[in-house]
């Protein structure tokens, strides 16, 4: 099944290219059917994981100790299930958005999207750092054409920033970190409890951790976050699925995985030189929220909000306590639901009204009630207000921080909640309660497919508050055997 999950998106990509020659409808049906099939395959793996099994697949060694191999474990399972599930909704949305905006080169768009999904599944299921690195790079390369989709001078320039930062950090920092790990541990296998304990100590631990954290540029810990706002030149479906879910989550997923399976949580907790990560994450959360306060462009605001939210996951992982690790995993899901809703809404607004700036949103709630309701739910989830998904994960992260008695983390979470409210609530207020300026374009809701997708993800955001038991059950397996 793992093999099917990996190959299926490639088959879909090929199918899209072929179908694109004949008709748009056929191409989009292939995308949709493919997305559903992939989700079916990936979700089909769930019962096994719940039962505590770890299905494996290996393609053999390339070099001694370097193998392309996959193993499904709870964290990867969650990530893959998330990405493949949201791809269905995103495909529905993409169809509405791309048609609504009459975008060009749609075949290339859908093809690269499928390729990016293949790379995401590869990242999620990788059983060692080398395989993960391989698919991590593939993900960067396959999303580049999506970011530069528009093809004009400014877009290409931004796309260059995107590619430059992601490739430079991965080759310049992530790769040496992998080689260093390999050098001291003689293995790159993700192993419960880590592989580095006793092999490396003192300040080297902090340094190696830094190479990993900043090398995984996709996690956007400051100062390697610049690619995320730059990537906002992409069409909104790309921002929504890739830069709120797949790509950025691949980043924080990698960091969490490295902390849990390479360093080992308990080993890191007992090593003082690793504490800087908490500071870095806290700084990123606060700084990115402050920058978000000052943004005038809706998508850029969402981008900086994403930077901050990603560091929540990094912070949760860096708190190094079981509850916080569970919180990291849940926040990947909660943030995905909330942020994809927000991006969908931003794209819906652009499609219907061509509005991109905050001040243009006065009174838009009356013209686009469905979209703006969804937007409100997404924003509340970002702040962490019940009954939304964001509350659940914040709860766990806070609980973990108390477990670790980490005052800085507790303070940061509280402060950033205030900041989140400070930049989201004015938008909500403006959209619903202020009067629209005279002489604006007369428009209604976005295309039905777009609205359908927005509402679906908003419902997910709400639903996750009530039905999160199965996810938490799954992730409890992640922290088995950890010191409390």
């Amino acid at each position: 099944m793992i093999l099917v999950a990996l190959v299926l998106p490639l088959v879909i990509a090929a199918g899209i290219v072929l179908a694109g020659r004949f008709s748009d409808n056929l191409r989009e049906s292939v995308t949709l059917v493919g997305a559903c099939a992939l989700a079916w395959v990936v979700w089909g793996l769930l019962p096994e994981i719940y039962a505590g099994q770890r299905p494996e697949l290996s393609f053999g060694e390339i070099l001694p100790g370097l193998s392309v191999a996959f193993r499904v474990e709870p964290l990867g399972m969650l990530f893959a299930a998330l990405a493949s599930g949201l791809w269905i909704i995103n495909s529905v949305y993409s169809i509405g958005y791309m048609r609504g905006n009459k975008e060009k080169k749609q075949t290339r768009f859908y093809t690269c999207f499928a390729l990016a999904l293949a790379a995401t599944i590869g990242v999620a299921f990788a059983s060692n750092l080398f395989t993960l690195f391989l698919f991590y790079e593939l993900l960067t390369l396959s999303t580049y054409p999506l970011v530069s989709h528009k093809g004009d001078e400014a877009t290409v320039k931004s796309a260059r920033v995107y590619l430059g930062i992601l490739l430079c950090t991965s080759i310049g920092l992530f790769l040496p970190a992998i080689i260093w790990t390999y050098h001291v541990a003689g293995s790159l296998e993700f192993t419960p409890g880590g592989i580095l304990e006793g092999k490396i100590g003192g300040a080297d631990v902090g340094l190696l951790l830094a190479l990993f954290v900043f090398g995984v540029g996709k996690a956007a810990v400051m100062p390697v976050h610049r690619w995320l706002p730059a990537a906002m030149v992409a069409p909104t479906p790309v921002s929504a699925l890739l830069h709120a879910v797949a790509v950025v989550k691949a980043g924080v997923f990698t960091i969490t995985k490295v902390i849990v399976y390479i360093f080992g949580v308990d080993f890191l907790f007992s090593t003082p030189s690793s504490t800087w990560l908490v500071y870095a994450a806290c700084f990123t959360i606060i700084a990115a929220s402050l920058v978000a306060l000052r943004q005038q462009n809706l998508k850029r605001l969402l981008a900086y909000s994403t930077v901050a939210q990603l560091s929540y996951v990094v912070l949760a992982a860096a708190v190094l306590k079981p509850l916080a690790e569970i919180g990291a995993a849940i926040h990947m899901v909660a943030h995905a639901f909330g942020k994809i809703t927000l991006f969908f809404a931003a794209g819906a607004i652009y499609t219907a009204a061509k509005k991109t700036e905050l001040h243009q949103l006065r009174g838009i709630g009356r013209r686009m009630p469905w979209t703006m309701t969804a937007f409100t739910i997404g924003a509340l989830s970002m702040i962490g207000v019940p009954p939304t998904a964001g509350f659940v994960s914040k709860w766990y992260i806070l609980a973990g921080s108390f477990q670790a008695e980490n005052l800085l983390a507790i303070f940061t979470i509280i402060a950033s909640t205030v900041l989140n409210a400070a930049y989201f609530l004015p938008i909500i207020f403006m959209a619903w309660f202020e009067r629209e300026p005279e002489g604006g374009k007369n428009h209604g809701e976005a295309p039905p497919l777009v609205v359908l997708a927005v509402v679906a993800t908003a419902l997910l955001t709400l639903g996750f508050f009530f039905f999160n038991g199965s996810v938490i059950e799954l992730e409890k397996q992640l922290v088995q055997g950890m010191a409390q």
Partner: protein
Amino acid sequence: MDLTPHLPALQVIVPMLAAPLILLLQPRGLAWAGATLVAIFSFFIALTMAVAVSKGAHFGYDMGGWTAPYGIELYVGAFGALVLVIVTGAAALSLLAARASIDSQIELERQPLFYSAWLLVLAGLVGIVVSADAFNIFVFMEISSLASYVLIAGGPDRRALPSVFKYLIMGTIGATFYLIGVGMVYMMTGTLNLADMESRIGGVTDINPILVAAGFITIGLALKAAVFPLHVWLPNAYTHAPHMITVFLAACATKVAIYVLIRFDFVVFQANLSGHQLQFSLFLMPLALLGIMVASAVAMFEGNLKRLLGTSSVAQIGYIMLGASFVTEAGLIASAAHLFNHALAKGGLFLAVACLAYQYKDLRLAQLAGAAKTMPYTAAAMVVCGLSLIGVPGTAGFISKWLLLSAAMDEGRFAWLLVAVILISSLMALVYVWRIVETLYFKQAVAEAQSPKEAPGVLLLVTWVVALANIGFGLFPQFPLSLSSAAAKLLLGHVL
């Protein structure tokens, strides 16, 4: 009759005897067909030997039945077999793809001469590899060099003449240095056979002439191998040569010189001269590091596609020398593997350049804007080979870069400097490769967009075979690696 023991001799004799015969094939296309067949045949000989060698065999051969040290000995071990595969493979593939490109660049009546010279280069290069005799190596070196001057200058580009003159002067100096060195060793030991030299130098009481000889030989060969800063002949020669000749030479010519350099230093000198190991490292490692950094930096700002790739070759040669300069097994494996992988990546890139040259006479980057629209398959092949040149995982280039990095990690105090240089230069490679990709894919075309018009089928096919080989050997590198590690063990077997 079992021909297997005769393979080392056949490897040289077949292209060498075929070269004058090609001259007789005047009718259109026949010269090309003949030369290609010969090259493919050579390739099969090399592959047969490589397969046998990877199983642990090795080939020794006494020409005319005269045993060494009186007769001329040929020898093919693991390292030799690897280089032979590279050389003959490059020749076979480039000749196979060459026809249309050569037709457009060389007049019909000169073509038999041209192909004949091509086979002479091939004969010379394989001759260097199989020879176990220092003077014989020199002879074959001259054959291959003289013939390659002809090839480079043979194209329609008149600027090739001054470039080739520079190459000729520098190449001759290099060869002369080598000959002086060999002469001195001969003076002191009375033998030209490499194995014999190795055993006799130990008995020489006055070691100074040998030391001088080691210097002459190393520098002479470094010149031939375009080791920085002795590389100045290379970028221009590659830029102005006919496109298919660039493919062939870039893939294998300097690598043969590196092969001789490594072989001479490891087999003959290191077994006998105390401290040679250190001298070798201290001399070559800084040059390799400088070469990697400077050449990569220059390539980042180069405007002409062919010269950009040529300059990048200088940096890549730096990687190969760097691995060798560690004088460790891991380093030598990395070095040998990079010989192979760089030939794949650079050969593929230059093949793609040859494809581009069909539509774009002017190969400056500015003129190539938007070429991916007119030649989508060529551009895609170029991206694949470019990724391999950068060393993105999943491509052949990654394998050798990984090996080189892990070898560098073992280097003790300097490890971090070495790792940093390799990584920074990888990022520089990223920059210059991405400049090409961006130009091809994302810049507005200078002229009005043409309808897609690809290069001739065979050329494109070969380009894609090489591009896919870059991925194939990135995922399944066992074959070159087994040869490389056998080669490293063999070479280190001679170290004190």
